């Protein structure tokens, strides 16, 4: 049926104009929503900026976000160190080492999809009971990072898998044909050409860690201080949540949201640069 359409329509048909138009409309809607969101945050937040927000130490008066900013970066790095290799390696196993009809593979895919559907609050409760209580890590960055890692694992795994599958088989055949071993082919040929796809998964993962509140509240805790591995510390999103919760510091909460947005923009720009470097090299 679909092929019929292609052959009977003409180049300037109304239908293809319509197709073009609906993509424009959809994109326009997305952009309008985006502009609204950003303006909303900016209007509420920018007016409340003060040097206090960037004071080195948090007090209940200045509502400084510096410790939270540090903790956010720390948390992102920690959880990526755990989740990114796991996710990418798992994807490599799924794509390169097994046929897609294998039962085991189906099970892994199912579990990954199940993981991606578990609400963050359930992760939070699980993390609290398992990492904080059972493993005696208490409220700590480590508990938080492991919980986050499980949470973003399916995201990274699935997107990496898609990216790897998209690498044409001719690449593999060419590499094997030139006498390269499997590992060499994977690390030198396949991974580099799959980097943009993998990265999009990692960015989504970072976004989730940066924006997560419910799960971290129960695992990393809400202490407003610079945290080490086994110390409790709040990330920016949690900082914002805590500030907004009692309605006492709404102004600072919105200002924090602005910083959070800037941070996300920064991460995106950075990962874009990294992707460029990697694909070139």
């Amino acid at each position, binding site marked *: 049926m679909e092929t019929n359409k292609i052959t009977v329509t003409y180049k300037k048909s109304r239908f293809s104009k*319509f197709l073009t*138009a*609906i993509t*424009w*409309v959809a994109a*326009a*809607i997305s952009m*309008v929503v985006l*502009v*609204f969101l950003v*303006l909303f945050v900016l*209007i509420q937040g920018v007016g409340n900026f003060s040097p206090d927000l960037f004071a080195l130490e948090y*007090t*209940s008066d200045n509502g400084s976000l510096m410790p939270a900013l540090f903790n956010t970066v720390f948390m992102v790095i920690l959880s990526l160190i755990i989740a990114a290799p796991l996710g990418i390696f798992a994807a490599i196993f799924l794509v390169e080492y097994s046929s897609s009809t294998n039962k085991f593979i189906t099970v892994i895919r199912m579990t990954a999809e199940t993981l991606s559907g578990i609400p963050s609050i359930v992760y939070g409760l699980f993390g609290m009971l398992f990492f*904080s*209580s059972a493993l005696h890590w*208490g*409220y700590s960055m480590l508990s938080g990072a492991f919980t986050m890692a499980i949470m973003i694992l399916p995201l990274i795994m699935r997107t990496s898998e898609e990216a790897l599958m998209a690498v044409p088989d001719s690449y593999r055949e060419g590499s094997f044909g030139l006498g390269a071993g499997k590992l060499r082919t994977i690390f030198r040929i396949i991974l580099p050409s799959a980097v943009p796809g993998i990265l999009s998964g990692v960015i989504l993962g970072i976004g989730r860690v940066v924006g997560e509140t419910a799960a971290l*509240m*129960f695992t990393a*805790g*809400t*202490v*407003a*201080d610079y945290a080490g591995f086994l110390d*409790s510390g709040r990330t920016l999103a949690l900082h914002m949540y*805590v500030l*907004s*919760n*009692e*309605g*006492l510091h*709404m102004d600072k909460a919105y200002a924090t949201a602005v910083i959070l947005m800037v941070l996300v923009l920064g991460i995106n720009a950075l990962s874009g640069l990294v992707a460029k470097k990697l694909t070139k090299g």
Partner: protein
Amino acid sequence: MKKFMSLAMTGVLVLGMAACGGTSTESTEAPATDAATTTEAAATEAGSEASSEASSEASTEAGSEAADAGSTGTMEGFINVISREDGSGTRSAFIELMGIEQKDESGEKVDMTLPEAQISNSTSAVMTTVAGDTSAIGYISLGSLNDTVKAISVNGVEPTAENVKSGDYVVSRPFNIITTENISEVGQDFVNFIMSTEGQAVVEAEGYIPVDGVSAFEGTQPSGDVTVGGSSSVTPVMEKLVEAYAAVNPNANIEVQQSDSTTGVTSTSDGLYDIGMASRALTDDETALGLTPTVIATDGIAVIVNNENPISDLTSDQIRQIYTGEIEDWSELN
């Protein structure tokens, strides 16, 4: 500045609508409504944030009942009842004191809050909802009250710290800290500080009602780490207390974890917290765990309505009727 922003936003939307107009299919339906609604939102926002003249302008535009309410001095329309989640310290105190919790035939206490009441999960969500809805009524901690909403008098008594303390204002609840027998020396020293004249001065300065009969603080300046955690309602005043304590005892390192009352209690019994915070009384199950609650302050609960709502005084009986659904329309209260 804000007016300009909202104008700019409207401009963006008009462009968006124009773009939608280009196509003529069912898919345009969604974007058109989307754009239209957002324009209105821009107007409402401009209204709520800019001066009062802008707000009356906005509400005429929106054509809502808010306009007539403001001009005639009476209130009409459905009451949008906002409550807190079942089990929240604020809610339990509110329903008990207002008689919303009633005993049924078998003597069991039943929370009669009307099932259609909207549930908000935090003080700020209640405040934001009420601030944006002329027909809403809600209740929050007195310490969090600000000028985005209007606190009404209950039985003719204004919700102020003095009135709560004197007992004239009836809606209040205790702030508890929870400790175990194994509390460390520095933890005990901090508790002593909270329960001293100095500590209670901090409580009072934050707008809560201090405990009577305390004496001056005699610290021994022990050193060590303490983790305090629990109720988000108690956290703001606890942060101030920690800062004040740090000034008298620089040797101690006290962390404040914000979660909720129940986590505060259970984590204290699990040993994750040294001192727990709860904005409600302990249940029998909890006291059986060997925990000791101490009241460190009393907090009033303010009943709030939108700033444009002309009503400023309700009896506790009226509030009960609103929350149980016997009164459904503001006009019944004029």
